[in-house]
């Protein structure tokens, strides 16, 4: 890159910042703003879900017996664990512990991969059960044949978008691990770890909303 770094006090302060503190504040505010845009991105799908669920409550509830709660529940647990390991990674960076940092980042990435693996199994099952709208969709009971497609369409869009965010997150974790291995972080500079940590927690939170809405709707009382 043609980036011109004017070296001031630290090695990581770019030329247009006065000091490291200003740079950190800037990055943090930027990340939070980005997460707000993400809320609105998923918000469009959540709004559609809310509207159709209120229009076709029975059809939506009838789908939950096709949702694998064991796999979905496992994935919820996996993601919650990964949030913990991510938080541990940020902590390790704060106290300049390089080896634990790399270990926790790798663990987080591993848990992310487990999540995606389980998601892939679920998608395969859905495909085999003809539950992908537009691709030989079949549904029993037949009276919900039409409206149930709305839910499955939203299911694939919402979980698919979530999975895409997981994949991007794993890519970012890979970068962090490489940077950590090169000893790029210290107690005075660990902004990327903290920012990607925020992103990772956000993606987890989205799942915390998706799981009950998609898997548990028919299981009340």
């Amino acid at each position, binding site marked *: 890159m043609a980036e011109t770094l004017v070296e001031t006090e630290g090695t990581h302060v770019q030329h247009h910042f006065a000091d490291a503190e200003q740079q950190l504040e800037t990055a943090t505010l930027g990340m939070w703003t980005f997460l707000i845009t993400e809320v609105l991105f998923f918000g469009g799908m959540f709004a559609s879900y809310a509207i159709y669920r209120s229009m076709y409550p029975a059809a939506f509830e009838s789908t939950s017996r096709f949702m694998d709660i064991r796999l979905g529940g496992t994935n919820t647990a996996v993601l919650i664990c990964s949030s913990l390991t991510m938080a541990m990674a940020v902590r390790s960076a704060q106290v300049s512990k390089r080896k634990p940092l790399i270990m926790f980042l790798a663990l987080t990435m591993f848990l992310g991969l487990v999540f995606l693996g389980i998601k892939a199994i679920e998608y395969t099952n859905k495909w085999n059960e003809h539950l992908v709208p537009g691709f030989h969709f079949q549904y029993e009971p*037949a009276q919900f044949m*039409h*409206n149930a497609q709305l839910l499955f369409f939203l299911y694939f869009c919402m979980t698919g978008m979530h999975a895409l965010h997981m994949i991007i997150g794993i890519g970012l974790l890979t970068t962090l691990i490489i940077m950590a291995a090169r000893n790029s972080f210290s107690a005075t500079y660990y902004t990327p770890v903290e920012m990607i940590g925020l992103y990772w927690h956000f993606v987890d939170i989205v799942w915390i909303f998706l799981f009950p809405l998609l898997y548990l709707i028919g299981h009340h009382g």
Partner: protein
Amino acid sequence: MFASFPIADIPLFPPAASAQAPEVDALYFFLNAVTIVMSAAIFAAIIYFAAKYKRRPGVKATQIEGSTKLELTWSIAPFIIMLAMFAWGAKIFFAEAEPPRDATEIFVTGKQWMWKIQYPDGGREIDELHVAVGQPVKLTMASEDVIHSFFIPAFRIKHDVVPGHYDSVWFTPTKPGRYHLFCTEYCGAQHAGMIGWVDVLDKQDYQKWAAGASIQGTLAERGLTEFEQLGCATCHLMDQQGRGPNLRNLYGKRIYLSDGSTVIADDAYIRESILDPNAKIVASFQRDIMPVFQGQISEESINEVIAYIKSLTQNVPPSQEGSHQWPIVLAPPNTLQQVPAAKSAGTVATSPGVQGTVAPANPARTKPGSVSPAARPAPAQKGNQ
């Protein structure tokens, strides 16, 4: 036909041919007046300032910070004028929302790229709508494909026609003439060809026109044919309770559903029940008995079947009353003995559903004894969903 410049033949203003049109126009002229006064004031100020305070050597600008009083004045005063626009516009819009009870109901189906018109007496036209001066008309509109929008500029009416919805709009023509009918929602290649004419005829001409049209039965009669061909009559028995609800005296009533809620049996509900029977099952009837007609029946046929079902109800309740009457319970087969069978015989021809004739029924067009849905008060129906 158009108000225009006397010199060059440029139309400036559309003809006003409905009862609503002069009201909308009055508001339009008010808006024009406000726009002209406001623009003129601002233009005049700019031109005056530009001339008066043109840069001159040795003359400096006078620095002025601002004025809260002025700011409040030019925030609040325009807003008050806007509130007047809002209230006036809302008043006309509300008045246009509910059709009068004596409105003739005409079905309109939008399809790439034509308007199909079905009259209550069974007449059909494409891209031509004939209406009589002074007779309120309510259009019930559906789309077979994409979103269209039904627009008659001379009547100042417009409404989108959305697939999966029933949309409605109404008007009272006031001036005989031939007016444009446009589609105003882009609907594909020949969108500009989805146009037609509205012929407003005086009463005499209207009768002549009606007499000349060739008809194969009224809308309701054709609905009966469809009803039998599609096999509906196997389960929806007319003189007793079959596997499906008895449809006699059903239209416009509030009925219980299997989930405990109630619904008014209006056009939209009947349409939904034909296309997707399991969506709202009448209390104590079974699911999955009736076939799904989604994709099996055209919007026009649905209109005919609905007209037939309407004709089975003698006094169609007006919409305002429909909402707070007690729900009726339709008896399932096993409670058949508790429900007295309908007294009248099962065919439509012997079931005179006429209640006060408004549109003069021409003998050539209306078979003796057949129903004339046109003559009934406006049915209960939600204009949109």
